[in-house]
């Protein structure tokens, strides 16, 4: 079991890779909040966001196919979750299916906005994680004053995913080696027990890991890492990208003022 695909492109050499991870996290967060709060039907800011992302992706030299392959499935999932949105009552009716159920123009617009926002947000996060190592993201979280306990939880989730998946595979093999068969009711009993065992093992491991942390002087109160100053390029990106995104939101308003 190998989860190396998570870090496949973080070793590339590009301006996006070289940006400080703190800057990348903050920029992505600011962009996400601006995109998500864009009212449905306002396509210019979202189109602009797509251009911006495409430019960043090309600059990062991460293959577009890879980025799309990892972002589109989430957009598809959101499309499925929000499938009832076009049937929102009220507003102009596009197609009437039954007297009570109709596809409304407003609903369709909302649906399209939800899907495109979901795609943009996921694509931005995928780009962030493909240009920053996991350790770099954790380090940046710590430097951004995210509580250390939270950072450690994320770190452990990443570290022990491998261990737990491997253990589950070993249990499955041990089960199959003893001619596991029979009806689904029996299956579900056995699988339930396996999940329980897996939980218990993880719980016990957590205790041992905590002991290993204490043994090396762990104290949740201390924040040992020293901050590192941002470079001029980092600061420029930190200011420029959100200003541009905000500008695209305010474009109609700016145009109206003239």
């Amino acid at each position: 079991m190998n989860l190396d695909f998570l870090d496949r492109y973080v070793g590339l050499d590009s301006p996006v890779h070289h940006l400080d991870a703190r800057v990348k996290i903050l920029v992505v967060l600011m962009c996400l909040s601006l995109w998500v709060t864009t009212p449905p039907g306002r396509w210019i800011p979202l189109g602009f966001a797509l251009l911006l992302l495409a430019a960043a992706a090309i600059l990062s030299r991460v293959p577009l196919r890879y980025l799309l392959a990892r972002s589109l499935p989430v957009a598809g999932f959101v499309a499925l979750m929000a499938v009832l949105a076009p049937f929102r009552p009220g507003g102009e009716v596009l197609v009437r299916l039954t007297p009570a159920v109709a596809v409304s123009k407003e609903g369709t617009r909302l649906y399209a906005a939800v899907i495109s926002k979901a795609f943009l947000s996921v694509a931005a996060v995928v780009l962030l994680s493909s240009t920053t190592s996991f350790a770099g993201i954790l380090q940046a979280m710590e430097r951004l004053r995210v509580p250390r306990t939270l950072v450690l939880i994320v770190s452990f989730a990443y570290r022990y995913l491998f261990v737990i998946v491997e253990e589950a595979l070993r249990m499955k093999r041990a089960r199959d080696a003893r001619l596991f068969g029979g009806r689904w009711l029996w299956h579900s009993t056995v699988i339930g027990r396996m999940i329980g065992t897996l939980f218990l093992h993880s719980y016990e491991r957590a205790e041992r890991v905590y002991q290993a942390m204490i043994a090396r002087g762990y104290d949740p109160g201390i924040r040992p890492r020293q901050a590192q100053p941002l470079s001029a390029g980092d600061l420029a990106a930190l200011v420029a990208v959100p200003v541009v995104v905000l500008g695209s939101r305010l474009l109609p308003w700016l145009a109206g003022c003239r």
Partner: protein
Amino acid sequence: MNTDSRVVLSLCRLSYCYPDGTAALKEVSLVLREGERLALMGPNGAGKSTLLLHLNALLDGDGKLEVGGIALSKATVRTIRQKVGLVFQNPDDQLFCPTVFEDVAFGPRNIGLPDIEVERRVRGSLQAVGLDGFERRNPAHLSIGEKKRAAIATVHAMRPLVFVLDEPTGNLDARGRRGLLDLLLRLEGAQIIVTHDLELVRAVCSRVLVMGAGRIVTEGAVPDILADPAKLEVWGLA
């Protein structure tokens, strides 16, 4: 035993009961001198691992622990943990960070060392265990032998007076085992090694302490203890 050298660790009449009332350790005492490598042997369930957890004050039974002349108390517990480097049996419990660098840096950062010194120590400790250049690797993807070495590096970076190792050669193949024995011989600092590996004891240790049912059954120089096969069987070592 060379009685001239300094005592680095002493444990006096340690007793411990598990929360369910089972007595795990009964009046265990031991003394470790500078540069000494002590083997701690005994059958499964004899209390060896419980004893190790006490040496790092992770469990607190009744008894007196002194490391480097400092007695264990609430005020000194962090110092004691720094001076006693505990290497766990399963390296997956000890290597919990996303990179080897972060893992080795974890302890030095907790002491509050500046970043430059942390980096220096990480590099030095990885070199000491023969893992130079492994800084950016993910511990999950190391071989078992590399994991064992990395686990030793994580405590080496704390500059402990005493290394306490729980089954350092467990699960290793012949070559990995030989490499680890060499490493143990090179490490600076006294060592307490819990092991079932008689070859390790012969190659690395000078003294053996045999435990059984929470007590120390016997104690002596390696050749004396390992000489009699019949006794080894009685003690549950062979």
